[in-house]
């Protein structure tokens, strides 16, 4: 864990160094707090001011008169040609390749000499589209003779859910009725969502959140049941908490939370 998180007895590193440590450990909020503290302490070093700009909130505003650009031709081009340009930057204009290179600066330099019909589409084509890790089911070097269910499992276990759904559709179209395939059909079916018949709205979460903040050390390693900032039950065992709640049913929906 980063040194600034451990809070040594006396911190001797510069603010900029400690802020960098926070950022490098993804603790952006901690880094922001440290910037604020450094400024309060009167640190106005160049590096600190750079961090202040970098960690400041992003700003957004209406811009661009090209909001409605339809990039379908560019995406069609990528689908058709991506294997030939792996590891390269490509600049496209409505399905036309304007420039390509492994070096983005070369592409940008080429674009400066052109007058494309609209803002070019710049894209880096990942070099890992086909790797040894890519499932056999996607590589298709030869007709894959394994059962559909096995190939679908392989895709799912590699997170290729879209590919698994396509393969499932193909299997069903071919009349495959393997019982495992029917299980995959259930799992891969689109989820269904609908407005609930349960009309109990949620209460303000902040009393519970504040309770957890105030008591996190005291209840570390425990499940807590809270109702609007009031502790109803706690135990390292969720079963104990549930047992207590079932004996004393709360009137409203409670929050169950495990405090690490």
């Amino acid at each position, binding site marked *: 864990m980063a040194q600034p998180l451990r809070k040594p007895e006396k911190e001797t590193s510069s603010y900029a160094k400690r802020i960098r440590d926070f950022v490098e450990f993804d603790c952006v909020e901690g880094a922001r707090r440290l910037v604020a503290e450094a400024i309060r302490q009167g640190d106005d070093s160049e590096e600190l001011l750079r961090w202040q700009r970098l960690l400041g909130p992003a700003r957004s505003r209406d811009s661009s008169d090209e909001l409605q650009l339809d990039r379908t031709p560019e995406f069609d081009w990528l689908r058709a040609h991506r294997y030939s340009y792996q590891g390269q930057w490509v600049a496209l204009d409505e399905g036309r390749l304007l420039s390509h290179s492994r070096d983005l600066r070369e592409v940008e330099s080429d674009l400066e000499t052109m007058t494309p019909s609209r803002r070019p589409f710049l894209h880096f084509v990942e070099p890992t589209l086909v790797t040894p890790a890519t499932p056999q089911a996607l590589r298709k070097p030869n007709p894959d003779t394994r059962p559909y269910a096995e190939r679908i499992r392989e895709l799912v276990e590699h997170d290729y*859910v879209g590919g698994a759904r396509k393969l499932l559709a193909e299997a069903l179209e071919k009349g495959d009725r393997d019982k495992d395939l029917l299980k995959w059909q259930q799992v891969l079916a689109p*989820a269904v969502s*609908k407005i609930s*018949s349960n009309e*109990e709205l949620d209460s303000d*979460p902040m009393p519970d959140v504040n309770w*957890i903040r105030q008591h996190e050390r005291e209840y570390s390693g425990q499940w807590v*049941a809270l109702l609007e900032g009031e502790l109803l039950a706690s135990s390292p065992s969720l079963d104990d908490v549930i047992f207590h709640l079932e004996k004393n049913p709360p009137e409203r929906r409670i929050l169950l939370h*495990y405090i*690490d």
Partner: protein
Amino acid sequence: MLKLDQVDFTCGRALFLDSVKGFQEPTAKIFVKISLEGRLNFGFYAQLDTGAAWSVLDPVLARAFGLMGMEGLQTKLNTRFGLFHGALIPLRITFLAKEGRNLDTYAHFFISPDWPPGRTFLGYSGLLDAVRFALDPQANHFYFGPGV
């Protein structure tokens, strides 16, 4: 609620948390409160994870509510916490609204006895891809509605 072309886009609005004590995450994440169909009226926080293929249910909750060991498709999940063996189990969860209407979603959750306790994730495939949602990070508002 949010509308798109004068038609309802979402049905409910909740407050999301970007950090929850108990979840050891260094950066802000999006935690929304959901409930699980079962014998107790309770809510709990789950992390939205649009980069995850599947949703994952905290194994302690799964065990307490009799969902561990239910018949489901056995599979593996490779995650930043490691490789886990478990089953994909159909569940009904409810997104809890502070305003508007709650939303029931029927989805498959990966349940593994080895998964780190206290962590539930709402993944993209078969759950978030069936829900319309929008975020207002300035106000910590999470809007949700049924998919079309």
